[in-house]
């Protein structure tokens, strides 16, 4: 009797880790290439982009909101950064065609590190606007961030009529391709961000505010917590990470491209939700999101190794997300019943 109880509880508490381990075993048996050092590094690096977005998304979903604009902010940050490097903050140049020359003459508006800080500030500002409008006018963030998504994407494309803008300095390429102790920079940035965010959520007053506002806003207000911070800060954080990803992606492509990251908000949401964070708010963790990100990254990776067609991959991804959610629901019900 006691043995059975332990197993069930164990299973429901650690279901996420067990799913990950299970997927690793299945992937290894499906393709020996999966566990090679090269592939694991690949997997982690490709996962770090949606991983960073997912960290920001965790904060937002914990307060019961959602941020659909992150993909557009990534694209906008990319072209804004490139535009800064070419000498203007704000530009409409649909008719000019950029002819490539070997050595790019950059006339940056700000120099390093001011230009990176500026772009990240703009991303955070967009997030701030998302949060404030949603809070002050009591409109659900789904609508606000959806509108922002469309607006920001349009703004980004208007910069160069959708054309990529070449010319990235070395320090940005280092952010995407450089290595520190043999580990690629995007992975390091992701892990460090996850650790800091996790500590923030678990051990600071700010973290408690986030959980409180997400769990029960009235109770939080009556406890004297600052609701404004609890409702607006997550969007600032989400915008911050989106802008950061935009800059790293610019390094990855060696150009600013306003059209990248379309649909990435959904990948981020999937990672957060698979990781156990409730869409109603108040429940979840960065660790969960990390595992969720790994599960999604692993899936994409093994499907690529198996040379599955792009369309079949989409179908499988969708199925796994649905299955994950259903399973989590069943396990939670078991937990409550027990």
């Amino acid at each position, binding site marked *: 009797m006691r043995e059975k109880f*332990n197993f069930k509880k*164990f299973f429901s*508490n*650690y279901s996420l*880790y067990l799913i990950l*381990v299970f997927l*690793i*075993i299945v992937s*290894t048996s499906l393709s*020996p*290439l*999966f*566990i*090679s050092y*090269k*592939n694991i590094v*690949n997997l982690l*690096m*490709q996962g770090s*982009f949606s991983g960073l977005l997912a960290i920001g998304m965790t904060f937002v979903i914990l307060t019961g909101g959602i941020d659909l604009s992150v993909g557009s902010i990534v694209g906008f940050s990319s072209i804004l950064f490139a535009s800064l490097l070419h000498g203007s903050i704000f530009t409409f140049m649909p008719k000019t*065609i950029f002819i*490539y020359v070997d050595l790019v003459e950059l006339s940056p508006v700000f120099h390093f590190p001011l230009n990176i800080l500026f772009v990240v500030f703009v991303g955070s500002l967009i997030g701030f606007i998302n949060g404030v409008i949603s809070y002050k006018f009591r409109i659900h963030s789904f609508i606000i961030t959806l509108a922002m998504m469309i607006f920001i994407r349009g703004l980004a*494309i208007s910069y160069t*009529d*959708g*054309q*990529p803008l*070449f010319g990235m300095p070395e320090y940005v*390429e280092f952010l*995407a*391709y450089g290595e520190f102790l043999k580990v690629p920079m995007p992975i390091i940035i992701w892990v460090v961000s996850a650790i800091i965010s996790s500590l923030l959520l678990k051990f600071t007053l700010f973290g408690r505010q986030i959980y409180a506002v997400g769990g029960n806003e009235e109770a939080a207000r009556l406890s004297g917590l600052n609701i404004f911070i609890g409702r607006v800060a997550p969007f600032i954080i989400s915008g911050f990470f989106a802008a950061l990803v935009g800059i790293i*992606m610019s*390094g*990855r*492509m*060696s*150009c600013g*491209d306003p*059209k*990248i*990251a*379309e649909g990435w908000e959904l990948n981020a949401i999937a990672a957060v939700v698979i990781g156990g964070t409730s869409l109603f708010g108040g429940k979840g963790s960065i660790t969960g999101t990390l595992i969720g990100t790994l599960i999604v990254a692993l899936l994409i*990776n093994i499907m*690529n*190794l198996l*040379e599955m*067609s*792009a369309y079949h991959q989409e179908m499988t991804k969708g199925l796994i997300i649905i299955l994950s959610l259903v399973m989590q629901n069943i396990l939670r019900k078991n937990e409550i019943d027990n």
Partner: protein
Amino acid sequence: MKFEKKIFLMSLMTVLLVFMFVTGSIAANDKLLIGFSHVAMNCPYYLAMEKAAKDTAEARGADIIIFNAEVDIAKQISDIETLFVKGIKGLILNSTTEYGTMPVMKKAKNLGIPIVAIDRPLYGDYLAYVGIDQWRAGELQGEYIVKSVLPDGGNIVLIIGDPGCPASIGRGNGMKSILEKPENAGKYKILATYKAEYNMMLGMEKTEEAITAFGDQINLVYCCNDSMALGALAALQEAKMTNVAVCGIDGQKEAYEEILKGGQYKSTVVNNPTVETEIAVNLLIDFLQSGKEPEEKDIITGTILVTSDNVKEFYNPNSVF
């Protein structure tokens, strides 16, 4: 209890990690493995390239892995990185944007993997490029429009594939550069530019939008590829606007059929995906097998204007594309 469970989980993961790094060997295969990072597979042109690549590789006794980037540059970079993991020895690359793949091409060079670029022009360190001159294709159409289609001037609706794409940039702006020449100044007006992702359905939709917006003002719908032009033709015929001319590029056989009919569809430019791909794959395999360097770095396959005068030379009802 919880502490014990944590220990159990940790040891389980450690055992797993050890298992992972101890086992695992890559199966040896004598066949030459090459990769093809394709930009998309959403129209007959790209599908013809896929088929040609598979057939040519098979004929040469090589294995080929083809990945579809779904017009997403970030996915394409990931695709190429996955191809590296799979151990390809050479890469055929049809890049989504001109600059986006530059860093990953540098990576390929460091790994000693030669790249043959195909179809979409790009910048970077490649062995050879096989494709048409996109700008020249646009110019040829521009010259034909000025000379024969609208010699007295007119209004043009421009439908491009997608703004960042080098083919659209070349074909669209090449054509416009002829219109902007001093002798043609003031005669031609571009009413609007739409983007239809080289897709026939979207080409039709965008033309319908143009018809709603401009109605009788339209004299010519110029599309950056035949798929979109065929869609535009369908929309114009629906709206009973049979005087409006249509021009495309690529040399799709359905386009030839329309030109043969001598109706609204006026001209196209030859761009044979099958020939292009065959040349590229053979070039790559030659280089990998015998170190044979390509004669020229940029191999421009025939950029030839096709109109009702010479369409019979090119039309082949049995061709794939």
